[in-house]
């Protein structure tokens, strides 16, 4: 309980202190708002332009959400295939890993060309960037099954399907969730890059647009919204993990109590 208080209390306190320092410096050195607005001003813009930010935020959130689903479905399926066949693992895994050396920035213009200015190209971008961590973590998780447990299942005369669903899948879930958590953080990047390169809506588009008009407060307000989106999504994943992988939390809480 005490640890929990410090866990949430201290970062908030630090954030407030940093904000106060920022506000004080902006006023003290009379920095013009088109260079660096103070946090109070940013909050004011966030409040005043709530409708605009929410509308664009919703677009970005949709892109992230859809991209994530695509990555999860394709990534998980591919991981299962890779796990089921040594030949597929040899064929696919090196290519998947080396594909990570291609910066997403580099292919963003191509994706816009292929999938258009609309939501499609951003969904693909997000999916590409998230996909990797899902595949790698799921493959790792499927391999993590304890050999003695597998021997037990063999003695119990379990079919390969039973071994897969009763042991391998549950065993892999904590790994899959680790992948999803990393994926959430990078998914926001994927969507925003897509919007920067070419879009008509979304928080990334709003930032570029506001920046060009020297509305720096609005740029910061968009960044704040993106951060809130990312944190919120992370929170959703944590809640889902508690529901789907309850044994992990229980184990962790037992350790911290002792």
């Amino acid at each position, binding site marked *: 309980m005490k640890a929990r208080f410090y866990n949430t209390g201290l970062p908030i306190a630090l954030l407030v202190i940093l904000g106060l320092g920022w506000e004080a410096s902006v006023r003290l050195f009379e920095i013009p708002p088109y260079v660096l607005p103070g946090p109070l001003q940013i909050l004011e813009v966030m409040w005043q332009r709530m409708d605009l930010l929410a509308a664009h935020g919703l677009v970005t959130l949709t892109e992230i959400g859809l991209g994530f689903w695509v990555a999860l479905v394709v990534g998980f399926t591919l991981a299962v295939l890779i796990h089921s066949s040594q030949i597929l693992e040899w064929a696919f895994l090196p290519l998947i890993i080396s594909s990570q050396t291609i910066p997403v920035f580099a292919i963003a213009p191509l994706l816009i060309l292929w999938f258009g200015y609309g939501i499609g190209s951003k969904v693909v971008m997000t999916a590409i960037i998230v996909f990797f961590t899902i595949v790698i973590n799921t493959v790792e998780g499927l391999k993590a099954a304890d050999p003695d447990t597998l021997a*037990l299942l063999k*003695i119990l005369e379990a079919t390969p399907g039973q071994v897969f669903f009763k042991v391998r899948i549950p065993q892999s879930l904590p790994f899959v969730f680790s992948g999803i958590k990393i994926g959430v953080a990078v998914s926001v990047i994927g969507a925003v890059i897509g919007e920067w390169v070419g879009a008509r809506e979304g928080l990334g588009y709003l930032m570029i647009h506001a920046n060009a008009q020297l509305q720096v407060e609005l740029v910061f307000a968009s960044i704040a919204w993106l951060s809130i989106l990312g944190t919120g999504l992370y929170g959703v994943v944590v809640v889902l993990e508690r529901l789907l992988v309850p044994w992990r939390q229980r*184990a962790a809480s037992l350790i911290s109590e002792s």
Partner: protein
Amino acid sequence: MNKRTGDPLLQINGLSRAFSNGKDKLQVLQSVSLDACEGEFIAIIGPSGCGKSTFFNILAGLISPDEGNIMLDGKKVPHLRGRMAYMQQKDLLLPWRNTLDNAILGMEIQGRHKRSAREQARELLKIFGLEGFEEHYPQELSGGMRQRVALMRTILCKKDILLLDEPFGALDAMTRGIMQRWLLKVWGQFGPSVLLVTHDVEEALILADRIYVMTSRPGSIKGSLQVSFERPRRITQADMVDCKKYLLELLEEEIMVGQP
């Protein structure tokens, strides 16, 4: 309580197995033979590294023997899988399943519906001392309780032969004593034939109808002892002390042989 009547349920004849490690060949089992009647409790003791686990792995069909055969009901079988349930020192409970669902794993794999399997397991919780813990996850149970869940899973497979590979080896002396009483109770109630591997002479004497002593590597059967005392037995009984002395002497020779 002499159960040695009629033909044995299980006959193991001359099982041998060697492992090769590069050009070195390590003979682990050398012509192991033993038999067990229906409902009989057999204990196998031997110095560590005598190939007990290899022996069980052969019976479980996880590895195959170089020589020898296994006869079940007078018929030759490659292994006992399908007729036996297996329990080890590691409880191998699945961390994402609670007590009840861990206990029914074997039944579930045999194709039983979860609900009816759970109902049946629920009725047995009391015998295994797990009442009130059916919703607990393994991480929340003590070592003794986890082993009882594993025992329950083993029993619920409803097989006529139980292979127990040092099932209580990781428990403290007190818990082990309690678990031995559980095991006897459960054995009395369900009546399977039991093959128990242990390095604990007292455990073997308290539990078994018959005790086989194995030699150090390569493992073979050095001798056997029929234990016909009424249960529950006390290790301090005069006749038990004599048996213990006899078994320890047999074992000590082997441990001496093993020393350079």
